[in-house]
């Protein structure tokens, strides 16, 4: 094949997942010659966001377990002293795929219904009381009727995340994006609502000072207690005595010792400390601190969500890598790793030998013998396209809910709407993630049953009651203010699932991936269970410092205006502009 790809690199990175992309950017940033390959035609691997059709294609590939083209074990490109190790198969790692539609393929009846209505009202359109003509009203109603075909025609408006995550406003990823100047490539929205599930209903968790005062869910004494406790956690320093005696107890035991009510305990434990009844006290305090310290930087919750979905983030790092000279080649698989004396020398890709000093690769691409006993299981994921928010208010929300499960890891629920460009208007996306115990369907069942309406909607009846009750229209916005805080999930108010996808994929964050690999090969975990990116950033930093211990990790990239492009000073006059280009 035509191959003008240069053959020698300091770093070759296989896979464009989050950790791989951060490492690629960091290496390129300090002037290393980087080649970044991905066998897919999209960025992100298991961290990607897909349009609806791209998701379908990915599912097909997973189901068919697309195998690697057989690689010749003996190749003239491999020397006698070298060993060629075949790359792993990324699609074999996704399993228990369950996909289900809850709506009909088409809505033939609606078209007829509509045209009938139009002919009727053509001559004398009657104004109904809310100012809409009958035709408009019918149109409006049919807008709320969904069928598969309709979803598919809007398929490009989806950005469906394989690994939905949030950024702590003061977390390591936000700091890294800012300090490296990569933040200019992306836009974010603040999560503006944190919900919890208590006594069979959804409640808004008060997390800022203003929230605590405003909430109707806790009494006056409780408010004082909550403020005191949160202040204690914020101001906690290791030398203080506050948590003496609780070092080997659970956070729950500590909270009990403070005489917190059930209600408060629930808020703090599950929503603010993002813990459960077995979380050790000091871990919980640390999480509470992290939560509180991220409040107020960008919004009234500690979290940010990337516009267009989380799949944008690896791409931002890839762009920086490219800007500093990194070479990008998608749809380009690595076939095998060539090693000698426990050191990787090169990779074979598409009939070419590409030499490298360091090889960075995601676990999905790693040859099985590099992985050793790393488990194949770990995460249970659910992606739901729904027809309204799980808890409607007068405006669109971006929501985090840690759905508590007794004695187990909670189910992390993230709900995003059309204003973040992850789905078309009129719809919401609901993501669920939890630790795999059984399979995704069973593991997520408690939250699905509690939050969603999962009966088949035949597409002929609009759940009209819910629409008039819900407060999504501005006219009825007022009524929501009073009831908004605590929504009892009446079955008729629950969002209808239109489409559901479940799958399981590996979670390797707790395993030492360096055990079975040559010394200059660095494996990157896929998405981890945690809601944030702390792990990915930490792992990327540690890989980078192993490769280049004396170099700075992603120093600030200069704005182009600051660059003196090696030019003789006598270059032509600049474009006459009255305003100097400014850094934003």
């Amino acid at each position, binding site marked *: 094949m035509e191959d003008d790809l240069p053959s020698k690199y300091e770093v070759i990175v296989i896979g464009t997942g989050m950790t791989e992309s951060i490492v690629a950017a960091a290496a390129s940033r300090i002037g290393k010659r980087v080649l970044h390959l991905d066998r897919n035609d999209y960025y992100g691997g298991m961290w990607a966001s897909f349009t609806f059709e791209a998701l379908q294609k990915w599912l097909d590939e997973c189901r068919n377990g697309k195998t690697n083209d057989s690689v010749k074990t003996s190749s003239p490109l491999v020397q006698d002293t070298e060993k060629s190790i075949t790359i792993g198969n990324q699609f074999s790692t996704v399993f228990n795929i369950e996909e289900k539609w809850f709506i009909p393929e088409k809505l033939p009846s609606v078209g007829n219904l509509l045209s009938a209505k139009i002919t009727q009202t053509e001559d004398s359109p009657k104004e109904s009381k809310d100012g809409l003509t009958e035709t408009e009203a019918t149109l409006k109603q049919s807008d709320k009727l969904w069928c598969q075909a309709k979803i598919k025609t809007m398929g490009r408006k989806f950005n469906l995340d394989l690994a939905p995550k949030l950024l702590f406003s003061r977390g390591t990823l936000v700091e890294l994006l*800012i300090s490296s100047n990569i933040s200019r490539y992306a836009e974010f929205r603040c999560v503006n609502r944190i919900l919890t599930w208590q006594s069979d209903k959804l409640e808004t968790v008060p997390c800022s000072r203003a929230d605590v005062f405003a909430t109707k869910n806790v009494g006056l004494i409780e408010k004082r207690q*909550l403020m005191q406790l949160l202040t204690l956690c*914020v101001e906690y320093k290791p030398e203080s005595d506050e948590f003496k005696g609780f070092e080997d107890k659970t956070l729950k035991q500590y909270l009990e010792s403070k005489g917190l009510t059930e209600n408060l305990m629930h808020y703090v434990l599950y929503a603010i400390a993002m813990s459960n009844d077995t979380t050790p006290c000091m871990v919980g305090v640390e999480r509470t601190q992290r939560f509180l310290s991220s409040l*107020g930087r960008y919004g009234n919750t500690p979290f940010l969500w990337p516009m267009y979905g989380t799949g944008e983030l690896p791409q931002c790092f*890839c*762009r920086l890598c*490219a800007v500093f000279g990194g070479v990008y080649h998608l749809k380009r698989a690595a076939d095998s790793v060539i090693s000698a004396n426990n050191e990787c020398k090169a990779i074979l890709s598409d009939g070419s030998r590409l030499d490298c000093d360091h090889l960075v690769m995601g676990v999905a691409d790693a040859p099985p013998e590099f992985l050793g006993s790393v488990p194949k299981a770990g995460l249970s994921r659910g992606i739901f396209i729904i027809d309204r928010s799980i808890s409607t208010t007068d405006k669109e929300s971006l929501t985090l809910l840690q759905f508590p499960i007794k004695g187990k890891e909670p189910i992390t629920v993230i709900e995003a709407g059309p204003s973040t460009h992850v789905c078309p208007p009129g719809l919401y996306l609901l993501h669920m993630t939890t630790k795999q115990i059984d399979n995704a369907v069973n593991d997520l069942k408690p939250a699905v049953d509690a939050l969603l309406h999962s009966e088949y909607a035949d597409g002929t009846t609009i759940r009209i009651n819910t629409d008039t009750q819900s407060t999504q229209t501005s006219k009825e916005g007022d009524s929501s203010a009073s009831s908004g805080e605590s929504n009892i999930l009446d079955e008729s108010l629950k969002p209808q699932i239109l489409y559901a996808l479940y799958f399981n994929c590996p979670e390797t964050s707790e395993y030492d991936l360096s055990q079975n690999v040559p010394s200059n090969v660095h494996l990157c975990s896929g998405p981890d269970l945690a809601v944030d990116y702390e792990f990915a950033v930490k792992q990327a930093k540690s890989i980078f410092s192993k490769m280049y211990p004396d170099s700075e990790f992603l120093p600030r990239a200069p704005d182009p205006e600051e660059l003196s*492009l090696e030019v003789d000073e006598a270059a032509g006059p600049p474009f006459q502009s009255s305003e100097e*280009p400014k850094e934003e």
Partner: protein
Amino acid sequence: MANRAVPQRPNGQTPGKICQFKLVLLGESSVGKSSLVLRFVKGQFHEYQESTIGAAFLTQTIHLNDVAVKFEIWDTAGQERYHSLAPMYYRGAQAAIVVYDITNQDTFERAKNWVKELQRQATPGIVIALAGNKLDLNTMRSVQTDESQTYAYENGLLFMETSAKTSANVTEIFKAIAEKLPKNETTNTAGQGRRLVESEGANKSLSSCCK
């Protein structure tokens, strides 16, 4: 409510009548994308311009009557070379310049593909300009002006032949784009999220928190 910080927003109109727009460059390697931008922004030209390291994000302002149109110009950073341009590149772009080399017919054919790609991937309503670059090499021309003109007309594109070397039509093409961009729209087509910047909230970490 999260969007108080107007000046940080990449798009839209601020009270001082500065409209900021994201403009992306597309086209095959070595047609002169970076050169066009360097000529426009810095007034420079380098005969043997290497793929521009570190300078894939430039800004330049044009004044049209009383409106300042600020372009935030994104270069491909070489990711187009192996057809690996990331979708994030197109996100929220309100304008694009698709560049080809008038001495190379292939680059014109590829330019048509980029136009298609933009129409498929980018924000609806994006202003697209087609630039036939290297007009200084007119004697070696292989793409006829008529051909490109017709194609541009049929596809609703702005069209000019340019030379980053002589600076012919460089300012003009950006100006034509600036004129065509909607400057009063309140409903902005871009992302409408927020950018994260250093200064923001630096001193008010716990201001709205429990203290």
